[in-house]
């Protein structure tokens, strides 16, 4: 599932995928895949992304369960 929360936070912060990738120290493709929901990042990488975008884990990666 596409991670639109992360994408919109990145755009709101004024970062391109390339800039965010460089700041975290990963490849641009990894950022694309996370945003497209095709890669599940480790907790460590999630925290790095959150720090760069000034968001919490809940803001970017928590998904409400529709069954609850």
């Amino acid at each position: 599932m596409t991670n639109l929360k992360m994408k919109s936070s990145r755009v709101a912060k004024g970062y391109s995928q390339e800039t965010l990738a460089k700041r975290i120290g990963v490849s641009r493709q990894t950022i694309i895949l996370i945003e497209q929901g095709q890669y599940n990042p480790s907790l460590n990488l999630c925290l790095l992304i959150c720090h760069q975008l000034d968001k919490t884990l809940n803001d970017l990666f928590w998904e409400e369960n529709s069954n609850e």
Partner: protein
Amino acid sequence: MNDERIDAKLSIIKKRITILWTIIAMLSIAFKWLLIGHFPNFSEAGAEFGVFIFSFIAIINHLIVGFSYETPDERMEKSIHNLYKSFFILTIVIALASYLWQIVHSQNNLITGLPINLYINLFFSLTFLFYYIYARRQGIYFNYRIIEKTTKAFIKSVFLNIISILSVGVLSALLVISLDALQYIPHQEIATIVIIFLSCFIIVFEYLFLSIYERNHATEALNHENGKTVLISRNAFLLTVMIGLFNLVFTVFNSHYYASLIDYQDLSGLTINVMHSIHLLLIYANFDFSFLKILFIIIVFLSLKRSHPEDKKILKMISFLQLFFVFLFFIQLFYMTFIHPLLFLRLSQQSTDAIQPLLQMVTIVSFVIVILSFSVPLVLFFYFSKRKYSFAPLFLVQIGLSIISIVVPVFINRTLHINLYMIFIYVSSILYFSFTIILWNRVTKTYRYIMNEPELIIIK
């Protein structure tokens, strides 16, 4: 860069390649065993033994690491990654070292009729090919460390890597010269050095091709995400240059070859033999280039599907027509190379009537090929002109050049005016090649602007 995703994917790729190495080394040893008649020794299959032993150890180590953890976790993945990281480089070094040992100790550059460098070339070619295929499947590039650098930095890094590969070749050659000077090895210095450099150049060519291909792919993917989609990938242009250059060499050499058959009395037997060998080599290379043509068609189809997603059905039909053309060309080439000479050999035993239907069939196929060679650019002309691309009329010029190159030779009597015929072949081939380059350069530099950003949710 310390990308956890790339590290995890690299472990998977290296594991698969290690398994592939083990299988190929085993097959090569078994093949040599069959050919030689005894189990090959180190000077006959040194590189295979080196690769087999180290790949096998890596796989066993992987199993041991896997069993030492009760439940798979990130620590286990890290251990496996480190294991393959070391063994991958080690196996390549061992393969090169044992190959070098093999060639400096071998009395002969042929092992039961097979070139001594056959295995090492196969080893590197298959490693390149499968590394690339597995990497693309896992969503990473072969040059993942340098692919995101600026163009200038990327070119610099690629050339540094090429220099490193060539340095290995130069060092190996120097070692051979030194050993030869010390009378340590049988005297076959030149042949050994030629073998080393041939292997090096094949690897460098493959690496250069992959690097340009990947860079184009990465740049176009980035542009596409920013809404600027290239009409047809620049890789189509790369393949056009390669195929066009080959066609140019093939046509010009063939005209010389047929001229030599006419004037065979003026040439020595050796010259005729050399020309005949080159002619055969070029025909075999033509089979390889048929696969490049298929790759070209696939790239054109995928690019147009991305830039014009609404035309999927028409694009499938155009690609099918192109593939049919390549297929018929392949069949005709196969017939002319293998079947036709066999039929002529048997003509003395059988009546010519028996092969009449086959000859008629070949004539029909040749006509269809000529018609398709005009139809494919014509279809592309209609497709692009309907979408108002300024380069569309250039496809008509291409058809015009094809007609001239087919019709004019009919009016030139090759036997009487061989010089005029040769001049025509040179001019028309160079003109056609240059024009094709200009055409595809323009096509692959045309962009379409598509905004493909999904609706964004703004988080406060």
